[in-house]
């Protein structure tokens, strides 16, 4: 069987270079590849283009990349939780491309699925439509949107096997399975790495074909943004 295991995060990201385009899974701080982020921070590579639904917070997640000035451009749907982000943006030190969340998800899925472009209703009549082809189907208007690809996709799963098959947990799934399909190289970090044959083949969310490297991540903090409890 094909074994995709690498030793650790450092080995997994060793060949990511300045100027790379990275997709990074997660919604807010949930389901982000914490170990890959830490390993990339050590390497202080620069001019990254990052495709991620959000941009982390000032002292966690992608916010740490911003602090170290590693990011040239963010492609996201919502970036509102981060002061350093705001500062760099207003100073012109950072480019941002904002994309409706469903369009972002579908563009990534299209990238992985060999669909170069598709029509979607989101953004018709808004500034998102500027410069895009608009076409009517069955009396309704749609925008033509292009697929998104990345040099590397960094995803975080709950369980994974040595063949790269992944299972996510709860809402930490979010963008991770889509991004896994759209990276030229997809790196998966998992909480539990098990031998091939340990996962139910019927319950796998991401088939191993999409994953080039997998490792067991350490000491997940899983920081909560809005701890909300009932009494």
């Amino acid at each position, binding site marked *: 069987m094909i074994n995709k295991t690498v030793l650790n995060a450092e080995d997994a990201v060793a060949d990511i270079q300045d100027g790379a385009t990275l997709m990074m899974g997660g*919604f*807010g*701080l*949930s*389901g982000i590849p914490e170990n890959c982020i830490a390993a990339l921070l050590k390497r202080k590579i620069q001019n990254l283009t990052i495709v991620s*639904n959000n941009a982390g917070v000032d002292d966690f997640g992608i916010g740490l990349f911003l602090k170290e000035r590693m990011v040239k451009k963010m492609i*996201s*749907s*919502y*970036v*509102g939780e981060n002061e350093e982000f*705001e500062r760099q*943006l*207003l100073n012109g030190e950072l480019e*941002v491309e*904002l994309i*409706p*969340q*469903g*369009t*972002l*998800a*579908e563009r*990534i*899925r299209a990238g992985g699925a060999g669909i170069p472009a598709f029509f*979607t*209703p*989101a*953004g*018709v*009549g*808004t*500034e*998102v439509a500027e410069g895009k082809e608009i076409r009517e189907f069955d009396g309704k208007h749609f925008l033509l949107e292009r697929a998104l690809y990345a040099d590397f996709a960094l995803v975080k799963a*709950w369980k994974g096997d040595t063949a790269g098959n992944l299972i*996510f*947990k*709860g*809402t*930490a*799934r*979010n*963008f*991770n*399975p*889509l991004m896994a399909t759209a990276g030229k190289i997809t790196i998966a970090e998992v909480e539990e790495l098990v031998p091939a044959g340990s996962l139910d083949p019927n319950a796998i*969310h991401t088939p191993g074909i999409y994953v080039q490297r997998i490792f067991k991540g350490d000491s997940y903090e*899983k*920081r*909560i*943004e*809005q*701890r*909300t*409890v*009932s*009494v």
Partner: protein
Amino acid sequence: MLTKEQIAKRIAKEVENGQYINLGIGIPTLVANYIPAHLEIVLQSENGLLGIGPFPKESAVDPDLINAGKQTITLLPDSALFDSAQSFAMIRGGHVQLTILGAMEVSEHGDIANWKIPGKMVKGMGGAMDLVASAKNIIVAMQHCSKDGQSKLLPKCALPLTGIRCVKKIVTDLAVLEIAPEGGFILKERAPNVSVDEIKSKTAGKLIILGEVPEMQFD
């Protein structure tokens, strides 16, 4: 004038049995508290969940279970989890039947602006553009006027748009209004102790009054 809770309570009356519903952040989230117990509905969270349960007990907080507002939540027996592409497939495909969300401005043609104020830091549209472009029924929950007293019900939105010709109904602290197919806000109900004249004076867009305007009922 209605409190936020009362706006939510009034909107809850729009909910129909069996619906799949997406609630935006703010007043829309409060709507969940007022949906009559006899209605069977399912709340969708666009980060990948159908069947949003109550907030967890402190001991049951799970960082891998959050809603689209990044709050910790719980699952229900009928919950299903999925990825973001599947989530917006069900939104875009019209399977989520009712979307309730806030707005900064609504036009008399049902255009909505709720994501960007020129000159201010832009945080992004999140899933709002997909939601308003897709759901069959879109209800806006908002104050009738801005903090400085300007009407938020306009002939044309001044702010950058989130979507066009999509809002079906608006519930404000003063009134319930529907968008007329040919344009205009049809005044359907007024808040207790609020006069039609007051609503008229605070609605910048075309207000359509068809006969007697009843006072809102909450139950």
